């Protein structure tokens, strides 16, 4: 066993799991834990006994939606949900080939520095290409429309590259198990779960849990649903805009409608989640780490500046502020994509893979 792994896990932000005395309450209360896929207690053991390989190849780490029922019920305040989050960061960092994530996840100042330096570089790149004489729209007076697109494409390519790399690292680690259902069925189930979060909805359903009596519209699963679909819709709108090369400003244009709905969902979800992370109504929100904030702030800033631009365009606000906001918006969006495999964002890849494997091997 790796006797120093316990301290490594601590560096990823698990501050309390050492207090665990192996009672198993967390696993007992978890609505997603089941025979053959039991967690989170087992992960406390894996972390304490330095079973790195087992952690890296586990599906359960990604099956968890971090509802925090386990931490609420832990008699030792060992915060198993916090450990699961830390182990996910450890896994993201281990799957990512450059080693940068390992550094930034373990050092908050470095994380902030890297994020800011990257932002400055992007801003300089964007500003260094002056637009051609025929500016298609007043908005792109200072930042070239084409430059934005090409930067976006470069970021997207890098993202796709890191996605593929993460995908293969991830599935390479999985130990082969006997498939119990057809690939098609497993894929279908995975897509349905990704669309409606049925498993997430089963979290926090105990009578005495904090969210049990609350309206669905403010429940964590729904906020996650909003962010997820907001993101998908915005991504679709952006992609369509690019494909049709039609910078139409009419709000009734289909891509604009999709974008606006997506933006609203994204803003609603991320704003409420940020409030939760600030106020800490439950333990899981109280143990918010920088990596959670970075991802959330990126989403929120991208959405917020997007809407600002919408309004500015609509109001023909030709001030420097608008041009500044555009720069900010593009930098946020591009960096968010670029850092996909280097941030919490990566769960969007690893969870579906885990879900697919789970459905495929489940009898």
């Amino acid at each position, binding site marked *: 066993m790796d006797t120093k792994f316990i301290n490594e896990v601590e560096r990823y932000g698990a501050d309390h799991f050492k207090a665990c005395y192996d009672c198993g309450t967390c696993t007992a209360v978890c609505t997603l834990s089941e025979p053959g896929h039991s967690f989170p207690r087992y992960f406390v053991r894996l972390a304490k*006994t330095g079973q790195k390989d087992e952690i890296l190849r586990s599906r359960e780490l990604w099956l968890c939606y971090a509802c925090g029922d386990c931490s609420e019920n832990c008699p*030792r305040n060992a915060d198993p949900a916090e450990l699961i989050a830390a182990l996910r960061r450890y896994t993201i960092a281990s799957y990512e080939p450059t080693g940068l994530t390992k550094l930034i996840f373990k050092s908050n100042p470095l994380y902030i520095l890297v994020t800011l330096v990257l932002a400055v570089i992007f801003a300089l790149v964007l500003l260094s290409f002056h637009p051609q004489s025929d500016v298609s729209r007043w908005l792109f007076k200072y930042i070239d429309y084409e430059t934005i697109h090409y930067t976006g494409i470069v970021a997207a390519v890098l993202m796709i590259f890191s996605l593929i790399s993460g995908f293969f690292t991830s599935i390479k680690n999985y130990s082969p198990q006997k498939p119990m259902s057809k690939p098609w069925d497993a894929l279908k189930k995975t897509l349905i779960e990704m669309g409606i979060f049925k498993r997430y909805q089963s979290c926090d359903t105990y009578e005495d849990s904090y969210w049990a009596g609350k309206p669905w519209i403010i429940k964590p699963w729904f906020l996650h649903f909003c962010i997820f679909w907001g993101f998908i819709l915005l991504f679709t709108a952006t992609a369509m805009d690019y494909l049709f090369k039609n910078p139409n400003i009419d709000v009734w244009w289909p891509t604009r409608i999709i974008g606006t709905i997506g933006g609203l969902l994204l803003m609603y979800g991320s704003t409420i989640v940020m409030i939760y992370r600030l106020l800490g109504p439950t333990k899981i929100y109280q143990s918010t780490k920088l990596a959670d904030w970075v991802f959330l702030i990126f989403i929120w800033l991208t959405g917020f500046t997007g809407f600002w631009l919408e309004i500015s365009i609509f109001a023909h606000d030709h001030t420097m502020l608008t041009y500044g906001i555009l720069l900010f918006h593009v930098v946020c969006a591009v960096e968010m994509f670029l850092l996909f495999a280097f941030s919490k964002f990566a769960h969007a890849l690893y969870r579906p893979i885990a879900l697919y494997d789970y459905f495929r091997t489940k009898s």
Partner: protein
Amino acid sequence: MKIGVYICHCGSNIADYVNIEQVKKAIQEQGEAFLVKDVMFACADSSQKEMVQDIKTQKLDAIVVASCSPKLHLPTFRGVARRGGLNPYNYVQVNIREQCSWAHSDDKKGATAKAIRLIQAGIEKAKNSEPLEPIKIDAVNAVAIVGAGVAGLRAAIELADMGTYVYLIEREYFVGGRITQWDKLFTTNQSGREIITKLYNQLISYKNITLFTGAEIVHTSGSVGNMQIKVRVKPRYVDTTCAFDKEKFEKAIEVCPVEVEDEFNFGLTKRKAIFKNYPGEFPELPAIDYDNCTKCGECQKVCDGIDLDQKPEYLNLNVGAILLATGFDPYEPSEGEYGYGKVPNVITLQQFKRLMELCPEQLVYKGRKIRSIAYIYCVGSRQQNGPNHYCSRYCCTAAMHTALLVKEKYKDIRNFHFTRGIRTYGKQEHIYHEALEQGDVVFQSFNDPLCQVSAHNGTAIVKINDFLTRGKPIELEADLVVLITGMVPRKDNSIGQLLKVPVGRDHFFNEIHLKLRPVETVIDGVFISGASQGPKNIMEAVNSALAAAAKANNLVKKGFISIEPTVAFVDTQQCQWCDKCSEICPFDAFEKIEQDGKQVASVITSLCKGCGMCLPVCPENAIELHNYTDRQIESMIDDLVHV
């Protein structure tokens, strides 16, 4: 002779199966009883008062209560007799509940007939009963305490404080016992030595305590209240002039050419033949280990207080009771048990405690700097295939506390606990939690042995199928393996054999009743305390020492001891002294005396337990038992066999 008979319904317990009316009628018709009554509950207050009244107003000479077992209510109705002005031994209890209604619930007629017969026999016994008075024997208000560990010292102080003279007898040359080998102790982090120093200073302020070190009881005679003990005191071969001249003493140690394994440090270090286990040890007088001393005389040249010609002293002491506080031995793992004796870096907790004290800066064992420690629990306890079946109580706490101390004292230590489940009961739970929070990892297994230890490039590999991690095989490379050994009884039980103190299946001293009489033994006047009666932590050992002190004081302080008068007595006219009675007596209660010019047997009443073993073996029928005299028993038999 006026005899009152009371027949108890015991609610429905008796009355449901024994026809009380019929019994009452039969007894009345027989005419032997002066008064026959039936009562709903004989033991009820109102019934007791009625009986007392009857005895007084009717001037009864004896009473019979037909109710439950005498084990339950004999003292109750003896009290009734006493309050009515009767001698308690003129009371007879007949058991018609257990022996009639419960035993024959399927045969009401038979049960009733049997009840009648038994009561008739009881009446016969009452008719022939004689008034008896408790036997009073003189008691010396002095107690010998064997063992001057924490329990013995604490008991000595308490007894002395209550006005009892104490002889504290310690086999070693120094007091303090096992706890002086332990540094900081849970919960106060006070060291064992600090505790002993405190107790010793208290002890020497008492004029009524005499401490003997290097001393052993070699012979005892007499009985409870008045025991004669013979104590052998080994010489120290050193007198006070050497002891208080520190320089001279140190010089004497320096010149001593003999080096032997230091038992105090469990063989981790060597010591000289002239020694003290640690500076400031009490009594502050070094000693010479005579068996290992070569008598070369080197020490005498530098220190004039050394006298190798001192001889053992024998002292005869007279005490009322003996209190045993002889402690335990740490379990010694067998060769190869978890690598002990085979893998070089495997030691016991006792050794580890000494090692920690010997390493003030860095934890080093056999030249290797220790960074990771594997603690293997339940070594010699809870054995599946061994004599020690149960938990040793102190070890989980001791190990966890040690793990805390190690991390506090040295840098970069990692602790790994291989357990059968943690039992840090009570307040000690806190240290378990503290140990977890500092990052200690706990493994668990119920296999026997719970893990395997093997040597590997100067380290030890510990393998376990960890129950807590789905039984996964886990391998740990540890610099040091510490076997958490439990407590076992003292190898040398000579004092127990001398005093005939019974031991349990665990070979620790046995108390009479685990809950209600926890510090008394079946040997009257011999009390047990501390870890001599089973594994205990210091708190529990002191608890039992104080209990034993209170019980011992209670026994001897009045100057006399009352015992039951139901003892054997010899008809000296008939006795021919054939020795058969003294041979069979398990309590050595017979002595040979001269009377009217012939040798006869005599009962030492303070030793006789009234068991009756001697009665059938006497060829002359010269021995009888008070309250069970031949007349009483024969009259009962006559009545029972009468058709």
